[in-house]
C-alpha cells in the first residue's frame, strides 16, 4: 500500500513562482498556486520548502505574497536538496516515504531520488494536477488534520522555549501544564481513530488498521473498550494523540491495539495510557495480555511493552506475538502531567 503523503516539499523558482528570484525581484506566483497551497493545508497535509536561494530574500518574498505561514521548517540555502529533505523529515518526525517533492529541475529531482528512493518526486510542470493526486487525498479530513499545521507551529514554539530552558527536563515539562485526558471513544472520534491507525507507524503495537465501521462496532460492544486520549498544554492542544482497543474476557483484558502519535514522544507521556490500562485491569482483577506485531518501524513499542514488565508468552500462527503482564509492577504517572479520565466510573459496564 502506498502511504498517504504527510508533507509536500516545494522548490521556489519556477515552481511556486515564475522566474528566478536572484535574477529579478519581479517574480509572480504561478497561477492557482495559492489555491493549491490553501487546499493542501486544509486537507491536513504539511508544506515545506527546499530551495537554493538566499534565505532572507526568499522569506521576504513569501511574506509579500502572504504565504509564508504555510511552510514549516523551510530549508532555503545552497546545500543539496536531499539533505534539506532529510532535515525536514527529522523536524516533522515523519516517514521519508510520506514526503512528496515538487521541483521544476530534473537534476534536483534525480538528486533527491538517488538519496531518498522512497520520496515521490513530481515535475513542477504538473503542479495543476497535484490536488487530484491519489496520495494527496486523505480518506478522512478530521478536526485534527485541519489543525495540523497549527499544532506543528505550536510545537516549534515549545521547542524554542525548551531549548532556552535552564534546569532539569521534568521542570520544563512541569512548566507546560500538560493535561492528558483519557475517554471512551465517542462516535465523532472514530474518523480520527481510523486516521491514527493509518498514520501512526513508530508507536504502533500491531500496525493493524481498522475502518470506521469496525471501530464503531468495538465502541458499542460490551466486550470491548475503545479508548482515545488527548493532550493539551498551555500552548494549545496536541489533538487526539493515542488510541487503545481492549478486549475483555473472563480472565483477561487483552490489548489488541495500542498506539500513540509520534508528535508527543518527547513529552514523556508515551506510557501514560499503558499505565492507565494496567491499573484498570488490575482493579478489575484480571491479567493483561497484549498483541505485538513487528513492523519495520515499531521496535520502540516492543521496548515500551518490555520496559512495562510485559513478558513474551507465545507466538500465534499468524505471527502475532502475545505478551502477558502479571501487573505486579505498574509505573505511576509522571508527576508533571495531570491525568484525567472520564470513564470507568460507571463500573457496571464490566
Amino acid at each position: 500500500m502506498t502511504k498517504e503523503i504527510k508533507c509536500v516539499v516545494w522548490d521556489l523558482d519556477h515552481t511556486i513562482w515564475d522566474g528566478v528570484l536572484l535574477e529579478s525581484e519581479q517574480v509572480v506566483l504561478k497561477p492557482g498556486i495559492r489555491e493549491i497551497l490553501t487546499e493542501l493545508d486544509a486537507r491536513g497535509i504539511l508544506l515545506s520548502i527546499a530551495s537554493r536561494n538566499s534565505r532572507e530574500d526568499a522569506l521576504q518574498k513569501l511574506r509579500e505574497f502572504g504565504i509564508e505561514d504555510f511552510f514549516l521548517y523551510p530549508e532555503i540555502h545552497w546545500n543539496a536538496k536531499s539533505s534539506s529533505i532529510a532535515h525536514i523529515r527529522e523536524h516533522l518526525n515523519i516517514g521519508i516515504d510520506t514526503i512528496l517533492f515538487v521541483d521544476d529541475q530534473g537534476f534536483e529531482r534525480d538528486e533527491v531520488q538517488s538519496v531518498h528512493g522512497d520520496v515521490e518526486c513530481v515535475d513542477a510542470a504538473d503542479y495543476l494536477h497535484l490536488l487530484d493526486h491519489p496520495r494527496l487525498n486523505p480518506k478522512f479530513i478530521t478536526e485534527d488534520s485541519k489543525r495540523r499545521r497549527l499544532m506543528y507551529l505550536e510545537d516549534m514554539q515549545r521547542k524554542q522555549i525548551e531549548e532556552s530552558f535552564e534546569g532539569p527536563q521534568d521542570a520544563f515539562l512541569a512548566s507546560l501544564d500538560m493535561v492528558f485526558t483519557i475517554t471512551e471513544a465517542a462516535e465523532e472520534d472514530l474518523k480520527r481513530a481510523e486516521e491514527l491507525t493509518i498514520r501512526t507507524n513508530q508507536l504502533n503495537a500491531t500496525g493493524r488498521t481498522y475502518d470506521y465501521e469496525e471501530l464503531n462496532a468495538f465502541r458499542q460492544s460490551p466486550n470491548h473498550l475503545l479508548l482515545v486520549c488527548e493532550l493539551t498544554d498551555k500552548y494549545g492542544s496536541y489533538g487526539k494523540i493515542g488510541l487503545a482497543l481492549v478486549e475483555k474476557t473472563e480472565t483477561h483484558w487483552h490489548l489488541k491495539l495500542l498506539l500513540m502519535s509520534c508528535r508527543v514522544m518527547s513529552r514523556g507521556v508515551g506510557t501514560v495510557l499503558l499505565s492507565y490500562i494496567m491499573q484498570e485491569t488490575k482493579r478489575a482483577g484480571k491479567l493483561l495480555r497484549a498483541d505485538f506485531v513487528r513492523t519495520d518501524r515499531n521496535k520502540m513499542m516492543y521496548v515500551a511493552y518490555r520496559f512495562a514488565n510485559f513478558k513474551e508468552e507465545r507466538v500465534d500462527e499468524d505471527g502475532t506475538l502475545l505478551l502477558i503482564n502479571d501487573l505486579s509492577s505498574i509505573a505511576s504517572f509522571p508527576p508533571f502531567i495531570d491525568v484525567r479520565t472520564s470513564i470507568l466510573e460507571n463500573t457496571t459496564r464490566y
Partner: protein
Amino acid sequence: MALHEQIRAYIQNNLVVFDEQAKFSDSDNIFELGFVNSLFAMKLLTHIEGTYHITVDNDELDLANFASVNNIVALIERKRAEVEA
C-alpha cells in the same frame, strides 16, 4: 574513563531532577528513585547500542538490566564478550 563513570555521567546528564537532589550509588535503582523516566529508558537503550556497538536482544529488554549503573555495565560487558567470543 572507566565504563562505570561513563554510564554514571550519561545518567547524570539526563536526570529529570536537579543534580543536588540526585545522589545514587552504582547499585541504586534509578527508576524507582524517580530520577529518570521511561522515556529515558528508551534513550539509554539507543545510547548504549550506538556507543558500545552492541545489540541488546529482545529477551534482555528487561527494565532490570537498565535500572542501575552496575546492571547497565554488566549488560554492556556481557554483550561485548559475546561479540568477541
